């Protein structure tokens, strides 16, 4: 009884940012996501965990319609951002992706200068009225990406010349430069060393103040460190979704328990 009331309170505190209902994803004949419903709360870090190939990336890419670029991919169901259906015919995925930014598994800076990497999004969306404006946006984004101090003296050096961890933080800065509301991250630390990983994790924690962050990770420790909510995927199903603490200490589903204790994965 007490327990139930606690749960209600948690939901009340967190307004829902993205609501997915009955999502099915097919790659040709492969059924990759099977009837997944999930409410991603605002200003929270939500982690997707699960064995590789279970559909975490696929589901994440549904949230900003990156799957549209894959010819054979078909998405069914209902996904709403602030109550608006993002798969509605009237929705231009380009506008959606400006609101729902994405950071990829492998750091992928453009082969341009650090400045141009960050300035690209604001430029194409017309966010800056003047050069000074743009300079300010770039600086703010790089600061939020926690990389400003390292690159402020070489803004016009190539972005590809940075170390892997710096590149990934540059990509995060690039993603936040367009002022998104949701930030999707697909295993952002899998190509990084432990020190760079710690820096990015710290950054994710800071980003939580302004954005809804959804992070896919194969590392349970990472999920435990950075997220407030955790969703466990298995073979295309969403097995369990709840408070991170509860998932790791007191999983309800036996599959979650065996994954966390290392028996599947």
């Amino acid at each position: 009884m007490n327990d139930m009331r606690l749960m209600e309170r948690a939901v009340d505190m967190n307004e829902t940012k993205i609501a997915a209902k009955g999502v099915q994803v097919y790659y040709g004949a492969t059924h990759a996501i099977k009837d997944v419903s999930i409410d991603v709360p605002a200003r929270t870090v939500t982690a997707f965990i699960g064995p590789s190939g279970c559909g975490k990336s696929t589901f994440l890419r549904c949230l900003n319609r990156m799957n549209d670029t894959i010819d054979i991919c078909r998405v069914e169901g209902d996904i709403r951002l602030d109550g608006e259906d993002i798969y509605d015919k009237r929705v231009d995925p380009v506008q959606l992706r400006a609101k729902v930014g994405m950071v990829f598994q492998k750091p992928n800076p453009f082969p341009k200068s650090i400045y141009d990497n960050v300035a690209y999004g604001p430029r194409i969306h017309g966010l800056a009225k003047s050069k000074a404006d743009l300079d300010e946006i770039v600086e703010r984004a790089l600061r939020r990406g926690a990389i400003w101090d390292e690159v402020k003296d070489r803004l016009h050096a190539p972005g590809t010349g940075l170390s892997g961890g710096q590149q990934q933080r540059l990509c995060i800065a690039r993603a936040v430069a367009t002022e998104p509301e949701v930030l999707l991250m697909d295993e952002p630390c899998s190509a990084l060393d432990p020190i760079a990983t710690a820096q990015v994790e710290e950054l994710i924690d800071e980003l939580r103040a302004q954005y809804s962050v959804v992070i896919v990770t194969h590392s349970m420790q990472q999920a435990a460190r950075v997220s407030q909510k955790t969703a466990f995927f298995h073979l295309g199903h969403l097995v369990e979704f709840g408070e991170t603490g509860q998932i790791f200490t007191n999983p309800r589903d036996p599959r979650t328990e065996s994954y966390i204790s290392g028996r599947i994965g």
Partner: protein
Amino acid sequence: MTDQTQNLGRSLLETDARTRKRNAAEARFKAFGVAAIAVALLALVVLLTSVVYNGASAFKQTYFELDIELPEAKLDKSGTRDLEVMKKVTTIGYAPILTAALEAAIEKAGIETTLDKKAIGGLISKEAAATVRNAVLANPEIVGTTQSFSILAEGRIDGYFKGRVTLESAALDSNTSPEALMLAQALADAGYADTKFNWAFLTAPDASDQRPEAAGLGVAILGSAYMMIVVLVLALPIGVAASVYLEEFAPKNRWTDLIEVNISNLAAVPSIVFGILGLAIFINFAQLNQSSPLVGGLVLTLMTLPTIIISTRAALKAVPPSIRDAALGVGASKMQSVFHHVLPLAAPGILTGTIIGLAQALGETAPLLLIGMVAFVRDYPAAYTPEAGLFGEASTALPVQVFNWTQRADPGFVERASGAIITLLVFLLIMNAIAIYLRRRFERRW
């Protein structure tokens, strides 16, 4: 000793039979590779030496330096300097004037010769009379004065100064004689004949069968340049647009598969087939001018398109997909991601493919033969005329000119054809150098 104990206790300093066999196989393979490269290099060296050996002399030419008296009585009987009247005097009327000038030079130098007037006139190229006539018609005021001219020596005489014709071979040749050669040598010693760099080879139009000394590549170079412009202007945008659409935008289905297979097949179609196609479509159906660089350029465009499309698609495929994801991820549209990020990265590959395609087109002969570019063309094509339109006048092209000259009887054309090949190779070299330079430049943008 059993198999198992074979390796036990064996010294590293001695190689066993297996390793020796392996090393021998590797050494043999390397030797084959070196031999293959050596054969290829040898063939290249032989080819280049023979071409350069035969053709280098085309870039030099023997001229007589004569003071020519231009008598009014012969060139302008009316004395009015009226061009219409003066044009009635043909090159046949000019020939005796040149012969007289040469005789005067022989006398002045004090050279003894047994040759008669006709044979002395034979030292001078038939083209020379036209040179002098054109100079007179361009400036009628010089009639009645004495002017110094550089006039072409006859092909055999020119050949003598280049070592192609000798006194022995001249004795067997009905077109010249050892006396004529000795006279020419004496004139050269006296400073009346000179072998100098032959700009006319690069600027003059073709000449008839009997005048190899006057034949030049001017029209062919201009024709080839016009065709390359047509090919570049048409094939590059069409080819790149087609590849970008197919690679980045088109859905992958049976139709695009079919198109892809057909493009690959087109790249393998023999070029002469494109010539037949061009003849049927551009000349017979569209009624464009035969032998015009426009038609030639269109045919070569058809031929070059598959090359450009295939290399452009390869260049686009080589751009990592993560760059496209990155652009789409910050909210770029498909088109923005392609034009801002993918195309610039693919540009070096596209450029290389285009220039290789152009180089191929520059050297292509067969389809041009079919659309009449093998015709003997004396006049420069104009870039634009109201009747023929842009690039619509008859012209010829470098490789066709080579083909044409190798067909001719006069041995003087061997040198011309080799010289034309050298010119063609130099153009190809320049184009490849540009391709390498552009690729380096674009790639250096990290």
